[in-house]
């Protein structure tokens, strides 16, 4: 059976984009319905595609696009378990985010344009997911970048927003350059860019590793891996639903998807996988430490995203392909949930500074509950989604003998649980810290319903890959790969660090918020609470001080060295340009002389070159 409905999945959002570009301004608030209808159609078709794949279908719909000589560019729609999974994730998250945005963006003057961009972003992302060859992959990759640029800079009146958009665009370009070079090398050595053909070919390990690593540069840029992660925290200047869709669930996952999609190629040069694992681990750990010190709710989530993406790369790198893909899947739900939850909070209190919030638990029940569910999933507490996938990755690292990576992974899991619950305790519990937050109230239904739906997935999506369901997800994504047996040590450690992290956060931030007069002074409970001071000190010296020192160091390193290099390269290029423009002196006789000198140099050089004297 040929799945001719596949092109529609991409086409419908594109049509929505075109419609909204033309009529968006006139329709204003009604624009959302067009876009949401389109993405819902795509979602329906994606689910049908997923069902077809579950029924054993694996297909490609190909069209020849352009040809020059004997070379053809085809574009097409590759349907297999990996792409089917991504299709559903992208369309589902996109649909929920768009519904949520109806409330969040309510009254914005560029409402139509916002939905047009969201539609086209979704379409580009779907085109990327479908890519059966690298040309299409690269094109969609660029398209995703452009719309991300426009959405980050959506509130361009803020100078920081337009700066952030530019930064995101330029930094990811650096990675894309590697990607482009990888494609050139691939074409030179294989004569094709069709994935199916490429993966069936034989490559020398060194060559495959070189190409894969260059290709990974693209992923490093797009998935905000060290050292090109600098754009993602800045990208939080965009509207929060955009952060949820683009900078948490989908676009940043494109890099992971690229690595997953090209996995057969990476496997041909195993050194590249080691590289991926190391970069992923560095990223995961480093971002987690920075998240400890961030006080902007979106920045915390942004660093956490970087960290989780690092986990995915770590999983892919240590050979746990299915685990990496699984974490991509679960993360999409709970991170979108957390971002939308954060959006709901920001919508209510009009601030992003967590130490200005507090006590929202009483006022925003749905938001709080779903946010906590997301937090539990992120922290890796069973049975929430994040636990199963993160555990699989750690298990992969453990069984493949990457001991150092495994322990750093465990440590990062501890930090993750800590900063997540630091956020939750500070934002939702205790007393409101700023007066004007007093009248915060729950967001409207268009915002809370998507939260509930995502909360449901954050709670349950992990079970698909859990032993309770015989690791159904892994079997689906990577058929033939035997799922790892449960390792009590890994699972135990993973649960333990999550709980330790949460407890530590409670001790540090939760207890201080407890009202003192609830319990009598002689009550043993009070003594226990009073004893927290000992624990606090212990904890201060053992945990807080070292990590804070480390975090501050990493943050400085990030700002000065990494950011400095990125900016420095840009500045150096610009300075070089400014220097070169001095050649254009404005004097016509200088120009004529340069022409003559150019001619003389060419003549002399050509005589040398051709051995004429």
């Amino acid at each position, binding site marked *: 059976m040929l799945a001719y409905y596949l092109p529609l999945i991409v086409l419908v959002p594109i049509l929505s984009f075109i419609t909204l570009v033309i009529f968006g301004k006139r329709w204003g608030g009604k624009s959302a319905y067009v876009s949401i209808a389109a993405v819902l159609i795509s979602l329906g078709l994606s689910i049908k595609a997923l069902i077809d794949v579950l029924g054993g279908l694996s297909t490609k719909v190909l069209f020849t696009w352009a040809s020059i000589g004997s070379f053809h560019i085809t574009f097409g729609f590759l349907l297999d378990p990996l792409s089917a999974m991504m299709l559903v994730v992208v369309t589902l998250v996109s649909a929920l985010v768009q519904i949520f945005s109806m409330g969040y963006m309510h009254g914005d003057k560029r409402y139509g344009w916002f939905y047009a961009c969201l539609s086209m972003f979704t379409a580009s992302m779907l085109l990327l997911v479908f890519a059966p060859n690298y040309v299409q992959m690269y094109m969609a990759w660029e398209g995703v970048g452009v719309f991300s640029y426009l959405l980050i800079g959506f509130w361009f009146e803020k100078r920081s927003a337009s700066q952030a958009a530019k930064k995101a665009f330029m930094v990811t370009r650096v990675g894309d350059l590697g990607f482009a070079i990888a494609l050139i090398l691939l074409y030179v050595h294989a004569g094709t860019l069709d994935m199916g053909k490429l993966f069936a070919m034989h490559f020398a390990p060194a060559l495959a590793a070189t190409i894969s690593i260059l290709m990974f540069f693209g992923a490093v840029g797009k998935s905000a891996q060290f050292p090109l992660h600098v754009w993602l925290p800045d990208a939080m200047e965009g509207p929060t639903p955009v952060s949820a869709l683009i900078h948490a669930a989908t676009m940043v996952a494109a890099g992971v998807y690229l690595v997953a999609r090209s996995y057969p190629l990476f496997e041909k040069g195993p050194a590249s996988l080691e590289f991926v694992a190391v970069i992923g681990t560095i990223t995961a750990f480093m971002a987690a430490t920075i998240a400890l010190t961030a006080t902007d709710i979106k920045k915390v989530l942004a660093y956490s995203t970087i960290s989780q993406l690092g986990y995915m790369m770590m999983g892919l790198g240590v050979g746990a392909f299915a685990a990496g893909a699984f974490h991509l899947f679960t993360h999409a739900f709970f991170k979108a949930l957390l971002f939308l939850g954060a959006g709901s909070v920001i919508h209510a209190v009009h601030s992003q500074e967590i130490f200005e919030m507090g006590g929202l638990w009483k006022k925003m029940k749905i938001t709080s509950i779903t946010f906590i569910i997301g937090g539990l999933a992120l922290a890796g507490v069973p049975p929430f989604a994040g636990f199963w996938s993160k555990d699989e990755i750690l298990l992969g690292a453990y069984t493949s003998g990457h001991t150092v990576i495994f322990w750093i992974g465990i440590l990062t899991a501890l930090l993750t649980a800590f900063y997540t619950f630091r956020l939750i305790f500070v934002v939702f519990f205790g007393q409101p810290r700023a007066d004007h937050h007093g009248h915060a109230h729950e967001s409207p239904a268009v915002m809370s319903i998507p939260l509930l739906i995502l909360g449901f997935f954050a709670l349950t999506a992990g079970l698909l890959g859990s032993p309770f369901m015989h690791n159904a997800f892994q079997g689906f994504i990577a058929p033939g790969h035997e799922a790892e047996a449960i390792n009590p040590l890994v699972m135990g450690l993973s649960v333990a660090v999550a709980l330790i992290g949460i407890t530590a956060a409670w001790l540090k931030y939760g207890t201080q918020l407890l009202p003192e007069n609830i319990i009598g002074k002689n009550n043993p409970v009070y003594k226990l609470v009073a004893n927290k001071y000992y624990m606090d000190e212990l904890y201060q010296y053992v945990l807080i001080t070292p990590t804070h020192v480390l975090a501050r160091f990493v943050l400085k390193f990030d700002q000065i060295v990494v950011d400095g290099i990125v900016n420095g390269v840009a500045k150096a290029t610009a300075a070089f340009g400014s220097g070169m423009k001095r050649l254009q002196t404005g004097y016509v*006789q200088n120009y004529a002389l340069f022409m003559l000198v150019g001619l003389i140099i060419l003549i002399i050089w050509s005589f040398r070159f051709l051995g004429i004297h």
Partner: protein
Amino acid sequence: MNDIITYIIFFGLSAVAIISALAIITRRNLFHAAMFLGLLMLVVAGFYFLLDADLVGIMQVFVYVGGVIVVLLFGIMMTSQMTNVRMVSAIKQKVFTILAVAGFVALLVSVFTKVNLSVSNAAVPKDTTSLVGKLFMTNYILPFEVMSVLLLAALIGAIVIARQEVKQ
């Protein structure tokens, strides 16, 4: 004997050509420079006669020397003072220019001295004037016509930018 005369003529022409060319680029008086340009063109016509290109030589004398020099003189009179113009422009590239041009000429000369072309001894057509006329109307009809269009375009162009702006 004939050979010696030819040599003398060639060297004489060459010497005058080079001297007048140098004079053109060194005279501070534009009128003198224009006169030397006329002289150079006459000398070049001499080369053409020496090379049995009678018609080209005649055209050089009548059309070129006449036409171009007159136009240039008009230009001088309309634009600026004739005498005592500053010679070298203020753009500082004198030494480098002379070195570069000298190098370039040396390169050309060294190439020309080694040039190994099959020189043909075939006879020159007798009546080049009528042959040229015939060629213009046959084989070279297209460039000839395009040339006329070019002259027309140049004429219009020169007029439209040189004319005084009519005040509305």
